[in-house]
């Protein structure tokens, strides 16, 4: 099977700090890939290198290739906004845009000018898209009567599902989730996990988590990082049940990290 994302010789430095060292790994299409490891091991750095959000950081240096469907996203001539349209992001904390619930979901479509084209055929099209993705994020029932209300009025759990709907509305092929439930209560966290599981057929999902139990619940594939290096990667059963590396075994059993 062709990998959806192929990471080749990725190195990242924050100033003098070598944050990721020679990462080589494949992320298969579909399913949920969990990136696990202790704090500061480079999980988020690896994740944010995929949609090129990493390069916005001051003093960063990135080398290597990240090949998405056969094309290196860091190659010259690649439009970064195009990469980010194909690779969505769900951040650790919800950041609703300063606008209504409806406009938050519609935002991605509107900035890409997709909507003018679609609206010519059918004026109600955007309404349908907003509804579809609010449903996909499991938020529709709670907000359908107040779509014009500011998004900031929603609870944190609802805001995170709104951010999920907003990311999905652009119809990304890959969805990156950076500790997507770390700011949420257990019930809201569970709802996000359910939505992610239901999305994994059409979308390649990459989740960063420091919660091993969450990785157990969600992951089809696992990438284990330790101090900026890749220790082990493979199908979830293999990594969880028959880890090859001593460090993986120690981390999974709670002896380190």
């Amino acid at each position, binding site marked *: 099977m062709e990998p959806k994302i192929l990471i080749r010789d990725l190195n990242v430095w924050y100033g003098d700090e070598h944050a990721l060292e020679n990462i080589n790994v494949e992320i298969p299409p579909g399913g949920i890939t969990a990136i696990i490891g202790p704090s500061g091991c480079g999980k988020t750095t690896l994740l944010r290198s995929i949609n090129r959000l990493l390069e916005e950081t001051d003093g960063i240096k990135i080398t290597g290739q990240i090949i998405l469907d056969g094309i290196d996203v860091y190659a010259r001539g690649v439009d970064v*906004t195009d990469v980010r349209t194909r690779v969505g992001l769900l951040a650790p904390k919800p950041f609703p845009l300063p606008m209504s619930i409806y406009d938050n979901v519609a935002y991605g479509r509107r900035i890409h000018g997709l909507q003018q084209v679609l609206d010519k055929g059918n004026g109600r099209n955007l309404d349908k898209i907003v509804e579809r993705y609010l449903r996909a994020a499991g938020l529709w029932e709670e907000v359908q009567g107040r779509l014009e209300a500011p998004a900031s009025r929603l609870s944190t759990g609802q805001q995170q599902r709104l951010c999920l709907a907003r*990311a999905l509305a652009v119809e990304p092929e890959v969805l990156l989730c950076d500790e997507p439930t770390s700011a949420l209560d257990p019930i809201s966290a569970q709802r996000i996990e359910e939505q992610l599981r239901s999305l994994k057929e059409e979308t390649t999902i990459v989740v960063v988590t420091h919660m091993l139990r969450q990785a157990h619940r969600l992951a089809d594939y696992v990438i284990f990082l330790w101090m900026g290096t890749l220790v082990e990667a493979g199908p979830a059963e293999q990594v969880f049940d028959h880890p090859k590396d001593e460090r993986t075994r120690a981390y999974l059993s709670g002896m380190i990290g």
Partner: protein
Amino acid sequence: MSKPYDASMARRNRIRKDIFARRIMKGLTVLAGLLVPLMLLALYLRARPILEAQPLTELLTSRVWRPLKGDYGFFPFMMGTFWVTSVGMVIAVPPSILTAIYLAEYARPRIRALISPLIDLLAGIPSVVYGVWGMLTVVPFIEKVAAPLLKRWLGVVPLFNSENPTGYSVLAGGIVLAVMVFPIIIAVAEEVLSAVPQGLREASSALGATRWQTVRHVVLQRAAPGVVAAVVLGFSRAFGETMAVLMVVGNVIQTPHSILDAAYPLTALIANNYGEMMSIPLYDAALLGAALILLLVVLIFNIGSRLVLIRLIRR
């Protein structure tokens, strides 16, 4: 026996110092808070003779200013202030905000660290220096270059045509004011834009928005109240500026009809005349009445903008 006694003394002393420090600071804070009401009261008391001699509406709308004959019409001066401040703000606001956006959203940290202090320096230059610059550079430029060009290109529009363009004009005052207000608006707006959480920018760019789309639809939306506050702050500064303006506006008692006409703002009226001819009691009261008007307008603008801010933040 002496040891525990000493300890309790030291303890009591420590607490006494704490109470003393708190009282001094509280007293000074209350005093600072009282300054504005006290100034309002003092100005009102000193201006009362003129308010009793002429109804307020007449003071504000009369165009005749003949102190020796008892005519005190503020209208030309209020218009002078209004014109000069407006022209200054129109010139200052768009470039200031664009500069602030560049510094906060686009500039690399090193460039920002280099340029921001330079812009802040502008705010520290004494206003008389701006006035001299205005007289030596801006006024001749308007007389020899700007006025003839404006007349040729836009002469049909009364706003850009004057019968007597000497260079000493509303436009000269506006340009000088604009330069003085730049650093204030830029500094505050940059601060406000930088306070927008990074996660919000990332949320937008992670959806594939360009930098400009993120700035336009997200950062500016979020920072709008603060940007308004920055503009109001600049306005207050421009509105009350005296020295630099009176050096370049011409100080002719008339209601300007064009940006090339001379004007006579309220601040210049007070600065040029206070202390002279004080034998006429009403004259003194009239000038302090002008000061009262200035103070009230600035107060109203500040309070109004604060109310707008509070409402926008709650939303």
